[in-house]
């Protein structure tokens, strides 16, 4: 079974005309920030289980909202700091040739799975409140 959806473009045009470009962008950014904050809080909780010095948790940072492909607004979560966890985070996530079972393997995957539905709800509710 398939369905064809028509008129999304004109609907978006109407929304734009009603609320204005800047207000839409502001609402999007607020929703994204809320979502990202929720995501990192869950991720920190997930990393807390196997923490040692806590550097991996501290160095977790989020970017400001930005456009990709000119249309899509995103926030990126990444690692940055003096202890350079960005260079070893993949070993923690997947293991390596020598280290087969790092503690906390798959922590990011688990976070993604856990936050999928709540994240969508947060975005939806935030947009609904703002527009």
């Amino acid at each position, binding site marked *: 079974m398939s369905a064809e959806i028509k008129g999304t473009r004109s609907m978006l045009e109407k929304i734009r005309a009603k609320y204005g470009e800047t207000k839409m962008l502001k609402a999007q950014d607020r929703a994204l920030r809320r979502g990202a904050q929720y995501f990192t809080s869950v991720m920190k909780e997930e990393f807390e289980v196997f923490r040692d010095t806590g550097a991996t948790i501290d160095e977790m940072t989020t970017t400001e909202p930005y456009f990709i492909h000119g249309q899509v607004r995103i926030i990126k979560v990444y690692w940055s700091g003096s202890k350079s966890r960005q260079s070893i985070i993949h070993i923690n996530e997947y293991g*390596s040739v020598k280290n*087969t079972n790092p503690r906390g393997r798959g922590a990011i995957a688990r976070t993604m799975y856990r936050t999928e539905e709540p994240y969508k709800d947060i975005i939806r509710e935030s947009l609904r409140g703002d527009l």
Partner: protein
Amino acid sequence: MLDMINIIKTHLLENEVIATHCTGRIRAYHYDETSDTKGPYILISPLMPPQPTTYASDKNLTTEYLYQIDVRTDSEKQAKMLSEEIRKTMFTIAFRQQRGGLDDYDHTVKRYLDARRYLGMPYTIEGLQNL
């Protein structure tokens, strides 16, 4: 209840290529540091506990599983060949490869690693089981 790891093991060994290279060399959860590191090794690690998903009339129909399957070998060609065969076999039992993974070489021990992740949602209710 299904013993999913055992099911995966049996299905993998039914594949001729995997059976010739890896009979008795498929491990789950744990990979001994002292074990023979000459030939190819397959390691299956669950990343999260099975998650009950679809429901009908208060009955749980499906369960979602997320596994990481590592192949460690001495030759790059063999690693890719085995990983491809694993991917095909997993596809037949309704597991799909996920984005991400690791393709790595360690020059100190001269071994390759191909790590992939599979998400599957098979029927686990009696009468509908398809595995």
